[in-house]
């Protein structure tokens, strides 16, 4: 996804962040943290005319108010884009509002409990080691291209019961939907079409030969009236699992390795005190939350006292909430053993990420296995770290050198 900037149609550069923000601006992509501070100092919620009108809550409190308010804010559109076409491809439950939301979500929750993730864990450990085997002898690698990118793709393929080698197709579709699709409706539609065709084939196969995998689980599921889900619902949920599960976790693992590469003190602590991992993973999730969601304003209301008007989108920035110093002391510092940490990296309220237990397991395993085999590493000064654009933030090029600096 590193080539996205050159393909996307240009937006005029931002000169006034407070009244004209743009989360696809290269300055934001490179380093959004000072921008969020500026916006937060101005108002708990800011507005831009871009994207046909869009708000952004800047404080934890404002993000929370919107996340809990399903009456005034709809989830039917979950990405802020240049266009707002008719809604065709749904992805329940992420795009569902109450009352449809709960039954759709309850179908997906059991396969993603912490216990279910424990069963998947050995496969993920093996995947990490297979990947490390491929580059460890080189003494360096682009960790985004060769490590972090492949872990979630293979893990979700394993869960869905489709060939792990089809991962490259998934990556292509996700790029079309999450990055190109922000500004190019054709790229989005093309990716959705290919993906739908791919899964329709797998659904047909499962009809003949049911299997013990997530596709079959969805096909066996019943709605609240006892009827099977429509193919459209199954396809929508599969689209969601794929889109939501891959570059989010790829980003979270990548940002974590990026942090550890440039922060030897934290890296050494984790190597010497592995019992810190659970707290460290949460802190890395807080500080480098990859996912920003969206809502659509349906009815006029107020957020933290500020009026918001229907017809606008909302950039629901969990990452900005997680950097709010009113909620987190030293919010701009990574404190890897932070004790009080109610971060919102997986959202708040009914749309809490279904895959959060999977993401945590993948992050933990990916960092643990990396540190076991490559305890010392640093950013390669000859390379350049690049970041994804738009809804999901994480390194797309992460050149690292192994071993201690000489």
């Amino acid at each position, binding site marked *: 996804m590193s080539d996205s900037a050159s393909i996307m149609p240009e937006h005029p550069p931002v000169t006034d962040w407070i009244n004209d923000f743009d989360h696809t601006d290269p300055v934001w992509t490179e380093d959004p943290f000072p921008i969020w501070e500026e916006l937060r100092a101005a108002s708990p919620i800011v507005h831009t005319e871009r994207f046909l009108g869009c708000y952004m809550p800047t404080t934890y409190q404002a993000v929370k108010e919107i996340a809990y308010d399903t009456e005034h804010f709809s989830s039917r559109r979950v990405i802020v884009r240049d266009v707002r076409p008719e809604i065709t491809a749904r992805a329940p439950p992420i795009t569902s509002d109450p009352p449809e939301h709960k039954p759709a979500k*309850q179908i997906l*929750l*059991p396969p*993603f*409990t*912490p*216990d279910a993730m424990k069963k998947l864990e050995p496969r993920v450990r093996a995947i990490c080691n297979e990947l490390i085997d491929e580059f460890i002898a080189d003494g360096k690698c682009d960790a985004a291209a060769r490590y972090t990118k492949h872990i979630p793709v293979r893990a979700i393929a394993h869960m869905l019961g489709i060939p792990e080698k089809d991962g490259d197709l998934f990556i292509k579709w996700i790029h079309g939907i999450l990055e190109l699709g922000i500004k190019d409706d054709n790229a989005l539609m093309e990716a959705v079409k290919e993906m739908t065709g791919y899964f329709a084939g797998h659904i047909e196969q499962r009809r003949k030969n049911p299997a013990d995998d997530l596709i079959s689980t969805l096909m066996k599921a019943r709605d609240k009236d006892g009827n099977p889900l429509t193919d459209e619902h199954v396809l929508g949920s599969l689209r969601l699992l794929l889109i939501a599960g891959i570059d989010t976790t790829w980003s979270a693992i990548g940002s974590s390795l990026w942090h550890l590469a440039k922060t030897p003190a934290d890296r050494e602590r984790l190597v010497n005190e592995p019992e810190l991992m*659970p707290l460290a993973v*949460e802190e890395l999730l807080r500080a480098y939350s990859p996912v920003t969601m969206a809502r659509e304003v349906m009815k006029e209301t107020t957020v933290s006292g500020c009026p918001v008007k229907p017809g606008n989108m909302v950039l629901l920035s969990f990452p900005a909430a997680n950097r709010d110093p009113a909620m987190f002391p030293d919010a701009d510092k990574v404190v890897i053993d932070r*004790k*009080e*940490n*109610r*971060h*919102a990296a*997986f959202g*708040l*309220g*009914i749309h*809490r990420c279904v895959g*959060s*237990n999977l993401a*945590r397991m993948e992050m933990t395993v990916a960092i643990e296995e990396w540190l076991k085999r490559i305890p010392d590493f640093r950013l390669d000064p000859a390379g350049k770290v690049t970041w994804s654009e738009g809804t999901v933030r994480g390194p797309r090029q992460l050149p690292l050198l192994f071993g201690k600096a000489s």
Partner: protein
Amino acid sequence: MAGKLNIRVDQDKCQGHARCKSLAPELFELDEFGNAHEVGDGSVPAGLEDKAWLAQSNCPEIAIEVTEE
């Protein structure tokens, strides 16, 4: 000495983040959907007080109530 602690998960607020179970597996259980409830009657055995507070201060939904007798 502080008094005995009790924990309670508010079922309307809990969204199944599972932070409580991961930080204090002795004190919380998850149902088949991954939502939490307190083990037994929610009384915190001696020695687990810190874990109860840790779980409480990491629940993103503020769904865990800790009371002191």
